[in-house]
């Protein structure tokens, strides 16, 4: 009985935490994912270099820098949204976004906004491809027929963007040069005493 109650409690907690994940809105009423990060240990230049490297190298297939100044990086990007259940699923569409990064001494902020969803459809070869080039704003109010599916898309997008944000913060906090120096450990089997 105790176990059943525990499982119920965990399930409800997971459900509540899933419900809490939602986008904030910016001054124009658009969805926004906004983060301010305190980073006293890294210089402004280092943070800017790493942000540029993240856009131009790490995400070069999905992001394109639009403007770079000595305090900011502006880029456009896309991310694939998939209906994944464990290891099985398929892409359901892509979301395009505008990315803004700004840095000051000891801290930086970034946000993703202008989120547009483009649905995918399976083509004649069994591949999922965009059905249109015209994206639908993610903050639109869907009709009754598509409300459930739209909610899933918004939730999936939030999860993806949240992961993107975590990856970005981790990248900016990590010294790649030091990491590159760490080579794979070599084990010699010639001596074993």
């Amino acid at each position, binding site marked *: 009985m105790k176990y059943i109650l525990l499982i119920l409690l965990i399930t409800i907690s997971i459900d509540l935490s899933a419900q809490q994940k939602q986008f904030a809105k910016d001054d124009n009423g658009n969805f926004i994912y906004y983060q301010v990060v305190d980073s006293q240990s890294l210089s402004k230049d280092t943070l800017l270099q790493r942000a540029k490297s993240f856009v131009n190298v790490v995400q070069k297939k999905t992001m394109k820098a639009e403007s770079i100044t000595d305090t900011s990086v502006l880029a456009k990007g896309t991310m694939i949204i998939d209906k*994944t259940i464990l*290891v*099985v*699923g*398929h*892409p359901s569409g892509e979301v395009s976004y505008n990315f803004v990064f700004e840095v000051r001494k000891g801290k930086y902020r970034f946000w993703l906004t202008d989120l547009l969803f483009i649905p995918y*459809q*399976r*083509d*004649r*070869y*069994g*591949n*999922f491809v965009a059905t*249109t*080039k*015209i994206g*639908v704003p993610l903050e639109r109010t*869907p*009709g009754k*027929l*598509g409300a*459930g*599916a739209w909610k899933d898309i918004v939730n999936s997008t939030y999860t993806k963007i949240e992961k993107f944000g975590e990856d970005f913060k981790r990248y900016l906090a990590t010294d790649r040069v030091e990491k590159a120096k760490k080579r794979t450990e070599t084990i010699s089997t010639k001596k074993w005493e």
Partner: protein
Amino acid sequence: MKKLLTAIFAMAGTTCALAQETTTSPLEISGSVDTYFKYDFAKKANNITTSFASDHNSVSLGMIDIALKKKTGKASFVGELSFGPRGQSQSIPDAAAGGSSFHIQNLYVNYDFTDQFSMTAGYMGTFIGYEVISPVGNFNYSTSYLFTNGPFQNAGIKATYKFSDKVSLMAGVFNDWNVYSATRGVSAVGGQLMVAPVEGWTAYLNVLSGAGAGGYGTIEDLTTSYQITKEFKLGLNAANYDIDNDGGGYAGAALYPQYAVADGVILGLRGEYFKYKDVGPVQGVKYTAVTLTANIKSGGLTFIPEVRLDHSGDKPFFNKSGGAAPNAGQFSLAAVYAF
């Protein structure tokens, strides 16, 4: 119980660890299920002889279609099978004689040598034409004369080079149409030029020459669609097929205007002109057909009510008493679920 849980966690942990170490994408599973009711105004089954949805006054089956795709590094495969009338006896070829087996929609492997250049080998949905076998890939539930008479699938090897997002070129060698193994050798060559001149407009210029339906011949095909506004999309398919030695063929064109009238509700029209070519003194039959279709979407489910009116001065249709008629009409209501 403890041992079982430990084993499960160990397996899950191993799977996660493996996933981190490779660039393997998850196995994709997708597909569709469709069913329909059709009422022919002359109360005849198969009165309009285009592919699928052939029954009259019956709630009938389309097919269940299941596709698997996986990509590991630069290599990928697609395997897609369908079961049910639309995916068995009404598609060609049926995997076994008698219409009681299954139909292979796609079975191929692909290798991306670079971001621009890839090669594909196996059995693939044809690159010719606007419509496809899967009801998920079509706006209208009934199919056009151009689709019915063109190739459904091509087995072969093809190479695709993507010059940019706006231009790509495909060239390949293929078996004769719709066969898992060649009956006349690797006997056809084909190519496709894709151009996307403005955002939202994509055009495919296709050529396939070699062994096909009715003999050796050449088919030229233009398939294009343009999403002009958020609500309005216009599609066009035009094709010409000449069989060598005046063996016939066909020519035709179909226009597909579609308009989104509300969220999840799209109305569309298909207007088609189609003519079989004359063979010696025998004149080919001409058809005009108009199909009004709605797509009403709710999640993965799409309802497709449709009214279709066909005309031919050669009277290839039947009237209620079984006599030859110049006109035929039908109403159908289909439900298609895609997953």
